[in-house]
């Protein structure tokens, strides 16, 4: 019996396509910054290879950020905020309905796991793990 191992992203034509699959930005946050550092384990056989530099994505608050927020507020439709009824507005903001989007993302993550556990062998699998027993 074999168990399929399926890539979590990239490589087109997947059997699932959840909105929350890792995009490039997600990948950059992860693999450029985290993981085991090879230098900690290997010295002699290390090969220095040129890596294309990619700026780390960190938040640096700047005047540009402030000006952008100010402009966003300037353009904001806040009919109601200037008067009273502020608590209502806050409440409205935390209890509305973009359910479909988020639920879709979460459900799709489950779909992937089910796909992987199911009998059907995905075509774009990257590897398989052999059960020894």
């Amino acid at each position, binding site marked *: 019996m074999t168990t399929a*191992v*399926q*890539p*979590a*992203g*990239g490589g087109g034509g997947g059997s699932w396509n959840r909105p*929350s699959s*890792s995009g*490039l930005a*997600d990948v950059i946050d992860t*693999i450029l910054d*985290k*993981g*085991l550092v*090879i230098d*900690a*384990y290997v010295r002699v*056989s*290390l*090969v220095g*290879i040129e*890596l*294309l530099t*990619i700026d780390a*994505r*960190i*938040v640096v*608050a700047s005047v540009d*950020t*402030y*000006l952008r927020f*100010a402009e*966003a*507020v*300037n353009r*904001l*439709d*806040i009919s109601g*905020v*200037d008067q009273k009824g502020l608590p209502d*507005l*806050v409440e409205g*903001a*935390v*209890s*509305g*309905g973009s*359910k479909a989007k*988020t639920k879709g993302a*979460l*459900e799709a*993550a*489950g779909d*992937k*796991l089910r796909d992987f556990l199911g009998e059907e062998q995905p075509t774009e699998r*990257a*590897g398989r*793990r*052999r059960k*020894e027993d």
Partner: protein
Amino acid sequence: MTESDRAIYVYGIVPADVETEPDARGVGDPPGEVTTVKHGDIAALVSAVPTNIALGRPEELAAHAALLDGAAAAAPVLPMKFGAVLDTEDHVVDELLAAHHDEFAAALDELEGKAEYVIKGRYQEDAILNEVLAENQEFRSLREAIRDKPADATRNERISLGEGINNAIAAKREADTRVVLAALTDLGLTVAEREATHERDAVHVVCLAETAKQSELEDVLGRLADEWDERVDLRLLGPLAAYDFVVSRTPE
């Protein structure tokens, strides 16, 4: 490629019983075929790369992540940070696998059945701006001060307003992150925080969870997503290799 302009890219460490598919492709242009190099109970996921090119194109970053995350869904995997390259497969065995066999095997045992999940939340701009304005009279006054006035003439007010809002959102991020961390901790999961990567980030945390219990994680986040409906776009990424939970020993 000859021996001298060819090197071995290492993606990560897996148990020796993990096998790659013949069509698994890795980094490089054209992408190298991914294979395993085994020693004892462990193996390295590797592919040959030419040494005369720079690595790090978007498709290479995606290939690195896809391979490790694909493996992590089914087997424990110790992911390497992008860009780990050794000279030969023999040295992958000697210097990497054999020299650290027991510590890698022990770490893989700990990860058995588990994978990393990333939870990302992003505030919806209008919703969060309305929220902070509603809570702060000074912001509302400043807004009136810049309202329909030229940007140049109100630069100081705009900077002051924007900075205040930025700080207010940062405070909300901290509070909402605590909510998510508490919910994950209640599930008994190991958690860690990540740096915000966007000024409207609401949450950026990671957890290590049993893949068999992914639905519990989804349920908890689903409830939070409902609670934060139209305020925070919440995403769950995973199962992923445990990038945030593997720690390199300190080089001596």
